[in-house]
């Protein structure tokens, strides 16, 4: 994608989030450069999902500072540069994978170097393009959501447990996607309980403590 | 449980056999329907004299009453085959029940429309909310409900079973339609035709009515055969005998 400057893409200083005046996780400090991958680690309920939603701009930090490309985080500055994939896949169960993808590209833009069919093929949904998602298995639904990673342009990926429900081919697929994105200068934050097999150097680890 | 079903029925219940059987029956039934229809209409529209009270308007009777009877008869058939579909999980019974529904809905619709067309000159209104008219309208809704439920399921067989269940529940409405004129005092005519005993109707008018009744029954048989054949093709898409038919019809 774009610039691999010396300014980190994302930088957090003593970042924390409170629910009903109680901190969900201890204040965090980290910086993520373009071309880097960071793992968000922690036990169930330690606040991984909360952190990712915070970074995506769906929640407001209660304390601390968040910088995007060196400047204070602002919605408009990073609009369209962040791709967030959460526990809820954001896909319509009545539509097929293809229709869902086409809508997503209409909203978020798309890469020129790849077609929808090629994407569906790559995530292993060839032949299922027009089947309503409701009729797909758990793993197939997940793959349909992952297809967005291939098609949409974004500098930063925020992936919440992308490996859940996938078989070993699916896990390999996610690892391949991560490597490719990082190699192309993108940055990734992944939360996961194992299963990450990343071949591009030791990733940064962000540990969550409740 | 399937032991209770006689052997010949069991054999006929196999889709390819029934497909061929229905194919053989259909032209005969259709022929009978057309012939009886022609005779009945000629008798009703041309030969029968005008009614001394209603004038020529009464000639609607030759389609109204047979259709009304069919609307109830088809529902009964649907209910019985629906019951068989649920208890014995017979594919053929499912097909018969589900393919009867549109035909029955068609006859019910005809009854309602011809009834209102008759009601305007006779009662001075297209529609009143009396017991027979309302229960016939309810019958139409029941048919539509069965059809809708059938198509709402993604799995056709499951849809057929669910819709059969609804059809069975709705069977109570059939006696209500029939006896509504007895139980409630209504605008609509009471029973005038009695096939076995003494009818209140003149023979000149009665025989075309009975012939038309035969015609509608034959038409139902013919239409059901065609629809069942079509449905079997859809249901058995994975089987060889259907694939052969598909490929055979691809050549022209």
């Amino acid at each position, binding site marked *: 994608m774009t610039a691999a400057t010396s300014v980190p893409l994302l930088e957090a200083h003593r970042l924390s989030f409170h629910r009903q005046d109680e901190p969900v996780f201890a204040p965090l400090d980290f910086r993520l450069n373009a071309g880097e991958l960071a793992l968000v680690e922690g036990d169930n309920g330690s606040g991984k999902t909360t952190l990712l939603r915070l970074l995506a701009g769906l929640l407001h930090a209660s304390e601390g500072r968040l910088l995007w490309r060196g400047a204070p985080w602002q919605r408009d500055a990073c609009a369209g540069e962040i791709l967030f994939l959460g526990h809820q896949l954001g896909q319509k169960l009545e539509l097929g994978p293809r229709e869902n993808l086409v809508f997503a590209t209409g909203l978020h833009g798309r890469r020129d170097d790849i077609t929808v069919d090629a994407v569906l093929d790559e995530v292993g949904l060839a032949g299922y393009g027009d089947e309503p998602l409701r009729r797909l298995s758990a793993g197939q639904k997940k793959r349909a959501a992952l297809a967005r990673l291939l098609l949409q342009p974004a500098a930063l990926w925020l992936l919440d447990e992308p490996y859940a429900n996938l078989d070993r081919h699916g896990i390999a697929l996610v690892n391949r996607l991560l490597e490719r994105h990082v190699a192309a200068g993108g940055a990734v934050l992944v939360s996961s309980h194992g299963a990450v097999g990343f071949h591009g150097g030791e990733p940064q680890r962000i540990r969550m403590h409740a | 449980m399937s032991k209770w079903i006689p052997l010949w029925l069991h054999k006929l219940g196999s889709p390819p056999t029934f497909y061929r059987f229905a194919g053989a029956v259909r032209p005969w039934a259709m022929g009978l329907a057309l012939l009886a229809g022609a005779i009945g209409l000629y008798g009703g529209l041309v030969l029968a004299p005008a009614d001394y009270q209603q004038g020529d308007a009464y000639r609607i009777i030759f389609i109204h009453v047979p259709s009304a009877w069919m609307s109830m008869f088809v529902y009964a058939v649907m209910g019985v085959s629906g019951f068989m579909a649920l208890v014995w999980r017979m594919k053929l019974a499912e097909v018969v029940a589900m393919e009867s529904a549109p035909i029955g809905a068609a006859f019910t619709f005809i009854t309602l429309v011809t009834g209102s067309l008759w009601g305007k000159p006779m009662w001075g209104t297209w529609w009143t909310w009396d017991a027979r008219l309302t229960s016939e309208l309810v019958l139409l809704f029941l048919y539509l409900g069965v059809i809708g439920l059938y198509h709402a399921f993604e799995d056709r067989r*499951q849809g057929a079973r669910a819709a059969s269940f609804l059809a069975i529940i709705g069977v109570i409405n059939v006696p209500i339609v029939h006896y509504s004129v007895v139980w409630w005092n209504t605008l609509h005519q009471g029973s005038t035709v009695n096939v076995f005993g003494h009818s209140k109707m003149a023979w000149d008018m009665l025989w075309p009515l009975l012939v038309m009744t035969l015609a509608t029954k034959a038409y139902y048989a013919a239409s059901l055969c065609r629809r069942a054949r079509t449905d079997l093709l859809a249901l058995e898409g994975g089987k060889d005998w259907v694939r052969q038919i598909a490929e055979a019809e691809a050549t022209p």
Partner: protein
Amino acid sequence: MSRASLPRACAAMLRRDLLLAWRRRGDLAMPVLYAVIVVVLFPFALGPDLALLQRIAGGVVLVTVLLAMLLALDAMFASDIEDGSLEQLVLAPQPLALMLGMKILAHWLATALPLVVIAPLLAGMLHLPTTAIPALLLALLLATPLLSLLGAVLVALTAGTRRSGMLLALMLLPLCVPVVIFAAGAVAAAQEGLPWFAPVAWLGAALILCVVLAPLACAAALRIALDA
């Protein structure tokens, strides 16, 4: 280990559904509010002609209450299907019909009873003569559980489908018609000072029949609809 006894299972079912209703009490108040809105809007839509309002009051309240019930009916099993609770219920070693009967009872208590309670208020807003109010209440007390029971069977039938809303309405209409006819007949008779026992007796007889048969039908329908 102890198998769950039947009374305990029934109690558990009833308790859970009422608890859930309480937790979602906002959603529950919806039918009531809806009925109030209808009754408030009517005078605006028709103009403030007292005699006219009085004339239609009984009918409007009846139709409104029954429609408000229909609103809530659609959701009877929806959330249970979505989160898999209904599967667990089907797999439980208890007789399904009985459990569903409890669910229907809880649903009636939570959605229809409040409507019946405010019905006199609604009737008052439309100036229904007080003499007709006992008939209205009794008719509603018989008609609402009847609709809950019949509705439950149909909702169960559409449980496996995606487009349940329309179908449900389509299938319920034929069932509503007689119920409305008898209930309205009772209210109209009472309003005119005539005896109104006969139509109410019919409703009662239908209710007794349904209390016995509907849960069984509901269980059968549900088994059919979920098997996909």
